[in-house]
């Protein structure tokens, strides 16, 4: 059992941190970027540094380390959405030809793929209502993060013979975009006899889809961990400097105890989330084990993310409510992550479905 990272991984962390804190040097700089289209600014640099190729060339550990650094500054670039999730699916399911066509281009930042899997009125099910028949897609996907900016959509759809397949759509589709709560973009995408080609060999691809989602959940969890850490650090810094009644806020025990509880939540979340990455990186891990680890991590993100994100606002007082100040954006991003891949109740229910199968859960068994 080892939770530590090696020197190469440390170097990666340092490099990503250097890059990303240069692009998003302040909360204000990030805000300027999210105000202008397409809402992110580090993509080309991340591609140059090789960060966008990590899911294709390195292990989930490196992917998570990068995601955590992006989370620390809540970089709005869709690393997990486009690279880990959509890119991961192409890598997992694509034909040799498709991989040749897309993987290098994705890693190089030239093609931005997005998975359109969520649907209006549904929660986080991989069962699709959008249909595929005779080479055409019909139906609506929403929300689809960064759909308007995407060069390639991966669309999940119900197959005539049953099951869910993944289909590729390049170029224009009917897209209606909104700004998301965390400053990103998400769209409603309508398919009306939209031509699409199947990804890979076709057939029911639900299992691969679930695996890709679980890997993305774990990467998101690391992004959330980075965000939680910054939210706490920022809050602690504020408590030490902000004066009220002639003294700094850390004079008040009630406030310190709330900060201590945030730290407890952060460290417990860190343990589970790090462990989930180690599970994902282990070659012997089964899809069921991966799903369990992903849900444990996602549940921690939901509970700890809200606790830390919202208490960060509370402990800042009114300033925490303002768009000019950073902590509110952290809470907002944490909330968005939770809703992209399943909220607390969703993952609690997933865990509840198997919790009676064992007496004691052994994470290192």
């Amino acid at each position, binding site marked *: 059992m080892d939770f530590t990272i090696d020197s190469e991984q440390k170097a990666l962390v340092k490099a990503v941190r250097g890059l990303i804190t240069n692009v998003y040097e302040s909360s204000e700089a990030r805000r300027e970027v999210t105000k202008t289209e397409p809402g992110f600014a580090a993509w080309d640099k991340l591609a140059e540094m090789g960060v966008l190729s990590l899911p294709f060339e390195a292990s989930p550990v490196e992917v998570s380390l990068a995601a955590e650094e992006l989370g620390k500054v809540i970089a709005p670039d869709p690393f997990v959405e486009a690279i880990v999730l959509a890119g991961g699916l192409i890598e997992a399911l694509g034909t040799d030809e498709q991989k040749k066509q897309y993987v290098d281009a994705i890693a190089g930042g030239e093609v931005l793929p997005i998975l359109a899997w969520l649907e209006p009125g549904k929660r986080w099910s991989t069962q699709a209502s959008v249909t595929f028949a005779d080479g055409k897609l019909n139906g609506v996907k929403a929300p689809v993060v960064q759909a308007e900016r995407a060069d390639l959509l991966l669309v999940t759809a119900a197959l005539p013979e049953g099951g869910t397949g993944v289909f590729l759509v390049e170029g224009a589709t009917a897209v209606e975009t909104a700004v998301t709560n965390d400053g990103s973009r998400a769209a409603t995408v309508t398919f009306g006899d939209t031509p699409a080609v199947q990804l890979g060999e076709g057939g029911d691809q639900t299992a691969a889809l679930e695996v890709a989602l679980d890997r993305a959940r774990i990467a998101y969890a690391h992004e959330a961990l980075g965000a939680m850490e910054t939210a706490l650090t920022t809050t*602690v810094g504020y408590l030490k400097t902000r004066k009220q009644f002639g003294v700094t806020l850390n004079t008040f025990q009630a406030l310190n105890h709330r900060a201590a509880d945030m730290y407890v939540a952060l460290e417990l979340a860190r*343990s589970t989330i790090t462990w989930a990455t*180690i599970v994902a*990186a282990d070659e012997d891990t089964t899809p069921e084990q991966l799903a369990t680890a992903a849900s444990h991590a996602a549940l921690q993100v939901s509970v700890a993310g809200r606790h830390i994100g919202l208490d960060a606002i509370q402990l800042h007082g009114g300033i925490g409510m303002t768009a000019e100040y950073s902590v509110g954006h952290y809470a907002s991003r944490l909330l968005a992550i939770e809703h992209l891949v399943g909220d607390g109740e969703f993952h*609690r229910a997933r865990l509840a479905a198997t919790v009676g199968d064992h007496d004691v859960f052994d994470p290192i068994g």
Partner: protein
Amino acid sequence: MRLQLSAEDQAFREEMREFFTTQVPQDIRDAVINRGELTRDQIVRSQQALNAGGLAVPGWPVEWGGKDWTQLQRHIWHEEMQLAGVMPPLAFNASMVGPVIATFGSQELKERFLPATANLDIWWSQGFSEPDAGSDLAGLRTTAVRDGDEYVVNGQKTWTTLGQYGDWIFTLVRTDPDAPKKQMGISFLLIDMKSEGLTVRPIELIDGGHEVNEVFFDNVRVPAENLVGEENKGWTYAKFLLGNERVGIARVGDSQLHLASAKKKAKEQGVFEQYASRIADIENQLTALELTALRVAAGSSGDKPHPASSVLKIKGSQLTQAVSDLLVDLEGPAAITSRDTRVFLNNRKVSIYGGSNEIQRQIIAGTILGL
């Protein structure tokens, strides 16, 4: 990063599991698993079974029966013990007074007390807290005045857990009332509980049980040779004692064992579906706690406690209580006469003793967050 234990640690885990499930009498393990109250005799026999296998005092110096284990091995030892329904060695002996005598005591004290302490031939009680000195321990007032070859002890201790079974009590006593700081002028003194002038009075608790006591000292004469280390240095030894036992502070194995009981009970009562979400939530938190305990154990160098120990204490006590709450709820109306309800009430203590959770938050705020 690596998921599994090393082959060596895995083998160690198997060895521990094998020992605990075969070498500790079944009646005692059953009592623990069923959340029963152990008799003095059962606690003694349990520890003696561990001691016979060399597993009662692994944290001590090797020459006195300790093991040169890593922190991770000590963690595994403790978790496997709890999962097997084996009561950990009596803390007063194994993790409190034993290490203090072994580290600061004279050769004579070591020889006289350590083997008997490891084997629970002597049952130690802890005499630290006083009515006005709980978390603020340095405020203690019990005095020991030197008179020839003896100390004369006067005062009162309280919250003396299982003091009714005690043969000896280790105490903090004030030997220099004029010391400039209240942490100074305190000594660490060993007292035979059969001494004249020493009385033990039971305190009944809200669960109806009797596990804590008051201990009164009325001109109790204690041989000066029973002083551990130097006079007026007791605070140093007490800090060593309190910082020493971090292993097992989270009680993960114990909570896992009882959560497994809760699952079984929910199934028996036909309400598993209804409780599955709550059980999954607790299991999720327990997993986080266990992984954190592993991080702390694997990350600790030497005997220095990891600063995140307070995290383990806070969350560990909260989860002990959460599992206990669940078990009571699963009793339904039977709860009002149930043993589980007594345990529920009794478990309020875990967030109070050993430095209350509020004190732990102070430690996190002060030493980790720098607030």
